[in-house]
Each structure stands twice: as C-alpha cells, then as structure tokens.
C-alpha cells in the first residue's frame, strides 16, 4: 500500500500560509511549498505565520483544526471549524452522564493512568532496575483496591496526584542526572524535564482535541477534570491514559538516547526553561512516530495507531453515554 499523505502538518518556520485555488501553499524565503489538503486533518503552527480569512474559510470547509503556538512553544489556542459532527442527543446524554454518573467514568480514567504507567515502568524493572519495585507493586495491587472504594471526585483527584508524584520520583532512577526532576512545575516550567513534560502534554492535548472533533462528543463536558477547568476539558480527560504511553515514553526515549541534551536543546532565561526550536523538532518527530505506530487491535480485527486509539476512546465514551456499554480507556496490556 502506498504511504498516504500525512494527516498532520507542523509548520515550524516563519512564513505565509494561504489558499491557492483548492490547495494550501506555504511561502517563506526559501520559496513555495504546496500542502495537499486531501488527507490533512490538522495543522500545527509553531512559529510566526501570516494567515488571512480566505484561508480560514477554506480550512473550515475541509474540517481542518489548526493549533497555534507562540514563539516560546506555549499553546495559544485552536481554530475549531464550524462543527461538522453535532448531535443534540449526544450532548444531552453526555451532560446527563456527567451529572448522574460522573464518578465511575472518572475512576476509569485514573485506573487507566495507573495501569499504563505500570506498563511503561515495567520495562525498566525487567531490565534490572529493582528499586522501582515498591511503586510498581503499589500501582498493580493497592491502587486497583483503592479505586472502587472512592466516593468523591476530590478524593479521586488526590489519588491521581499521588500516582503522578510517585511516578516523577522514579525519574531519578531511570534518567540521567541532569534530567532529574525535583518537583513538577508548570507554566512556565523551570527545568528541562518539566519543559519536556509540559510541551509533550500540550501536543497530546491538542491531538486529542482534533480527535474529539471528529466524533459527536462535546469538548467541554468532562468527568475527571472539572467541566469548567478549561474550555476543552474533555480532552484533558481523554489524553490522561495516553500520557504514559506517548508523552513519557517519548521523553525517556529521546533523553536516554541522548537525542535531546540539556546543553543543546533548551533556552534558559531568568528562572524558567523552555525547549528551543531544534529541541522541539526532535521531540515532535519522536512523538509523531509513536502516535503513528500501529498494532493489532483485539476486537476490531484491524491494525490501528495510538492516534486512532485516542479517537476510539472517544467512541467508547460516546457509546457509554448513549447506549450504556462499559467504558474502559485504552490499556496498553490489551494491545495484541
């Protein structure tokens, strides 16, 4: 089978993006690049790019989502075309599920975080890292016992926080010394590992927004995160289970293979730290490879990618709110 055109395009250099007939063109000092629109689903603009409304009309017709980042790699927003898939019924049922049945859905997300972190770290245990054993046992034995006993979302959130906190603590056992994290700091991150985590989580979050866009789910009605957390808080929920598998595996890979290095790939200014342009390129390429990685999906009898698995989690959630079928987020151990 011929390799199909990419569904995602990252634009990293300054220039002008425009419409020419029924095609996209990108101009910069190097010349003109044509971007086929056929299979394109999303655009990432990671630099200063000029655009006009004629282009947005065209992108909207083609149902393409556009994610904007500023010069520092901070996510600034998404252009969300006039919704292609809208179902009042799904929205009402999703809201009803959030009001009446929020906890079990939220618990399912946290269970998936724990299970998937276990999968990721088990690799290091298997290769001789015995010190992470207590954390692995806690994830595998205690967390699944605790989860069904939880009665309130805040209690669940503190357990989730504990899972992540203990995960970050294991970094000193699996990463080189200059990448060890003392504590998780967001907006803005203050050290290289926090910069990688923030950037990776943001890319995954926007990827999930684009995937949800192609379903009928409402982006604002979420279960684990407060529906008012951010405008698109459902994306925060659905991306959680994939963070260990996509974001953290990518980080461990690029750091341990020395493809990203503290001296070369970070800008340190005042008291914060950001991935520089070459660093972002390395990271995005590695993360995109992981998202496109395919494997056999059990019930589907098809090969799917991690990116598709995100969309399928949205389908599962939609099916749960509409038809009452069980909802379990993607679990790495179910991969075949």
């Amino acid at each position: 089978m011929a390799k199909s055109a990419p569904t995602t395009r990252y634009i990293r250099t300054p220039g002008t993006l425009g419409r020419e007939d029924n095609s996209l063109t990108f101009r910069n000092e190097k010349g003109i690049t044509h971007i086929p629109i056929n299979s394109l689903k999303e655009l990432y603009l990671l630099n200063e790019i000029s655009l006009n409304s004629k282009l947005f009309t065209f992108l909207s017709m083609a149902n393409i989502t556009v994610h904007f980042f500023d010069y520092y790699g901070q996510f600034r927003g998404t252009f969300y075309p006039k919704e292609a898939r809208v179902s009042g019924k799904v929205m009402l049922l999703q809201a009803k599920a959030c009001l009446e049945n929020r906890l079990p859905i939220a618990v399912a997300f946290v269970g998936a975080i724990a299970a998937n972190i276990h999968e990721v770290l088990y690799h290091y245990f298997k290769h001789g890292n015995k010190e992470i054993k207590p954390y692995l046992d806690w994830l595998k034995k205690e967390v699944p016992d605790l989860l069904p006993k939880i009665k309130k979302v805040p209690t669940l959130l503190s357990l989730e926080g504990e899972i992540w906190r203990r995960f970050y603590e294991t970094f000193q056992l699996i990463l080189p010394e200059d990448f060890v994290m003392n504590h998780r700091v967001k907006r803005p991150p203050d050290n290289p590992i926090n910069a990688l985590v923030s950037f990776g989580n943001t890319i995954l979050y926007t990827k999930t927004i684009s995937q949800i866009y192609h379903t009928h789910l409402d982006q604002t009605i979420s279960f684990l995160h407060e529906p008012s957390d951010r405008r698109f808080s459902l994306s925060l929920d659905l991306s959680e289970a994939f963070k260990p598998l996509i974001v953290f595996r990518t980080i461990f890979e690029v750091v341990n293979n020395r493809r990203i290095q503290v001296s070369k790939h970070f800008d340190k200014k005042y008291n914060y730290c950001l991935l520089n342009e070459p660093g972002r390129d390395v990271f995005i390429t590695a993360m995109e490879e992981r998202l496109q990685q395919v494997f056999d999906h059990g019930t589907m009898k098809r090969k799917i990618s991690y990116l598709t698995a995100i969309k399928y989690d949205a389908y599962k959630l939609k099916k749960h709110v509409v038809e009452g079928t069980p909802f379990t987020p993607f679990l790495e151990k179910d991969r075949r």
Partner: protein
Amino acid sequence: MRITGTIVNYYIHCKRQCWLFAHKMNFEDDSEDVRTGRILHEIRSEGRNNTEIQIEGIKVDKMTEEYVVELKKSDADVEATKWQTLYYLYILKQKGLDRKGRLEFIERNKQNHRTVELELDKRTEPELIRLLDDIEVYLQQDKPVPAIYAKKCERCAYYAYCYI
C-alpha cells in the same frame, strides 16, 4: 420524526445504522464509498433538468413521465433500495403523482440485471405502511439495537463505533 428515504433504506440494511443516522449521529469518517456514490450521482445528473426532486424530506434522484429512478453505486443491498424507492412512490402518490419505480445500479455484483422495476400495488403498499409504523416505533427507542457483527459491517462507516 420525519422519515426519509435513507432512513427506510438503512432500516432494512441495518437497524443500528438507521437509529444512529436518524438521531443525527452521522458517519464518523468520510467513507470513500459514500464519496464515490455522491460523485457518481453528480456526474449522472449533470446537465439534466429532471434530476433530484425534493418533496417533504424525500430526495428523488430522477423522475420521468412514467418512472421514479433511484441511482445506486452498487447492487449490494437491492432489498433496501427497493423499499426506499417504494417509499418515494408512496409519498408521490399522496401528492397525486402515480409512478413506477426503477432502480439503476452502476456496478452489479450480486445480480444479472443492471435495473430493477417495481410498483406500489395491493401487495407492496400495505407492507410498506406496516414497515413505516415499525420504523416509527423503533426510532422512538432510547438506544439502538446491539451490533450484529456481520460480514457487511466491514465496509460500514460505523464499523469502529459498533465494534469498539
């Protein structure tokens, strides 16, 4: 809920597809088959003025003095197309337009004929009315029937949603 020709077709073809479609949970993916069907339809109707007539939610591909013509990409589900067309004949009859039906398939895989003719008569009309009642009742259910996991599912745009 207003019944359309597509809803009648889907009810015969697949009840899940019918329910999801009727509740505006349309195709999740831009299915290549759906696209091909639409383009073929556009090519066929180009430069003609007797094409695509819209009455009360039904869209008739083509109408002549004698026939209502339904164009389909393939003859994959003749039965479903038959009832879709009979439904058109039924609506038109209520408007005082008596027509016969003709189905035209661009690809034929299952049968020898490229066209099928049919009529709304003493046998088919009461059967159609019963069918419409059944559809009405079914669509009022708060969820669709479970997935059937059949061979025909493999090419359906709802495949992933049903099988996940």
